[in-house]
């Protein structure tokens, strides 16, 4: 599903960060652990095609993404990935439902309202369908972000510190939902975090 070889990245005026080779199988759930500044986000962004790699190869779903053109990569991201970040980064001008519909629209996939309702149901957000983003609590917003990430049934969900802004109760809930939603949609999940609370929930862990 994901294999990397000889991946490294150098920020201007800083030391090279070399990553060890990774091999993750389909539908596996992995935790990517490391302190701040250890390169978790960089690795996640490289794997997600959000950052152009400088050296090494990344193969996702049988596609060598380092060789894709920029627009090819955009399309690939839209169709294979779901992202969850530390903050929900929902578009505040849109309702919950329209936020979710942005995912298939931008990925160039058909917009299926039933699918939106299905995902909202899974995440216990059905009654929030027409809510404005400002009306949501932080935990709810993060759940909507998860809903948005899984909506297109991506093969790979990448989460960057999805729980570190949440209290214990919400952290638990969001983490469980992330695992549940990934399992439900058959997606591979990779969570980068320094949040020790998640350690007990993942079998596969990768320390940077």
């Amino acid at each position, binding site marked *: 599903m994901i294999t990397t070889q000889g991946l490294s990245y150098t920020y201007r005026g800083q030391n090279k960060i070399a990553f060890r080779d990774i091999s993750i199988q389909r539908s596996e759930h992995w935790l990517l652990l490391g302190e701040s500044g250890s390169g978790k986000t960089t690795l996640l962004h490289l794997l997600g095609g*959000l950052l152009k790699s400088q050296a090494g190869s990344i193969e996702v779903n049988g596609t060598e993404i380092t060789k894709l053109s920029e627009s090819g990569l*955009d*399309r690939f991201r839209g169709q294979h990935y779901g992202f969850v970040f530390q*903050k929900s980064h929902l578009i505040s001008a849109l309702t919950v439902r329209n936020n979710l519909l942005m*995912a298939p629209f*931008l990925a160039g996939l058909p917009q299926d309202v039933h699918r939106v309702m299905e995902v909202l149901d899974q995440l216990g957000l059905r009654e929030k369908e027409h809510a404005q983003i400002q009306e949501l609590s932080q935990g709810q917003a993060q759940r909507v972000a998860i809903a948005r990430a899984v909506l297109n049934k991506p093969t790979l969900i990448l989460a960057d510190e999805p729980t570190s802004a949440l209290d214990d109760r919400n952290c638990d809930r969001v983490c469980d939902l992330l695992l549940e939603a990934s399992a439900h949609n058959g997606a591979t999940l990779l969570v980068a975090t320094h949040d020790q609370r998640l350690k007990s929930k993942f079998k596969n862990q990768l320390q940077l």
Partner: protein
Amino acid sequence: MNLISLVWNYLRAKPLNTGLNIFLLALGIAVITVLLLFNNQLQEKISSNAKGIDLVVGAKGSPLQLILCNIFHIDFPTGNIKLAEAERIVRHKMVKKAIPMALGDSYSGYRIVGTTTEYGALYKAELASGEFWKNDLEVTLGALVAEHTGLTIGSTFASAHGLTTDGHAHDENLYHVTGILKKSNNVLDNLILTKVESIWRVHDLIHGPTVTPVHPSSVVESVEMGDSIREITSLLIQYRNPLAVIQLPRFVNSNSSLQAASPAFETARLFSILGVGVDVLRGFAVVLILISGLSIFIALYNSLRERQYDLAIMRSMGASRRTLFISTLLEGCVLSTLGASTGLAIGHGVLWIFTLIVQESQKAGVTAAVFYSTEGFILLGSIGLGVLCSLLPAIQAYRTDIHKVLAGS
């Protein structure tokens, strides 16, 4: 979801900002629109009213007044000219047609014009009902006169001296309505037409029955040539050939106590005087539009800062750089299109209210219910302005560095 609804939601999320931008542009466009509608209609009216009249000959005074009075009927006569003098002009070989005008009286603000049937023919007047004036004191009403005074065929009325309703009433001789003209959208709509002789009769210059003259005057056939008592206000003259443009005005101005004024020249002069005001207003509108452009630019530029996460997230969901570029351009265009169409609507609305309040504008035939192709260009130009103002923000959106934004550095 699509880009239009995304953009629309963004605009709706900031109603004050959006409203201000639309309002600013609309204000500028509205001023331009009112000027355009007013100016165009005025010029159309002026050229249609002055059509077929090459020269106006009347008593000495202001040439502009002569034109305003005898062609547009919005000013007072410069004085009268003797019939014998008018005959001298009519005899000139460069004169193809000369129509006498006897002005000075009115009925409830509408001018009574003593003339010949040729005056009606000049504007291709058609009857809506009844018939054209034939005998003394018979009148044919312009469409708006009939509409506003309520006079119908068979009605009689006494004329008043001057153009106001409270002038001295000539109630010894009553006019008699024999016909009503169709609406022609020119000056005829506001006139009451009759024979020159009717005017003379009202002013006691004719008594008793009409007698057939031995040598009929070339101006008014019912009187003897060389009449020294009777007067008219002016002659509307059509040239026989282009050479007359040079010869005839000079002949009139140098060889008699009369003056000649060219409608084309005088209206051009009038417009150049009015033009200063119009230019100032137009300049003001352009400044407004430029400010609104700047305001749209600033609004987009600022909102782009706030939206850098939105943009990065959209890229992560598969949006290409081009999509972000287009959506930002679209936002500018939607703003400017809304502003421009609101402005066009306001422009027409203001003119409509103006025509309701100011009766004179209706007399002048100004209406809000006309559309010029220039308005299409205004709309296109505004869309162009929208593109221009959103270009820089759009380029910025295009350049969004997803990694930097999402990594929070």
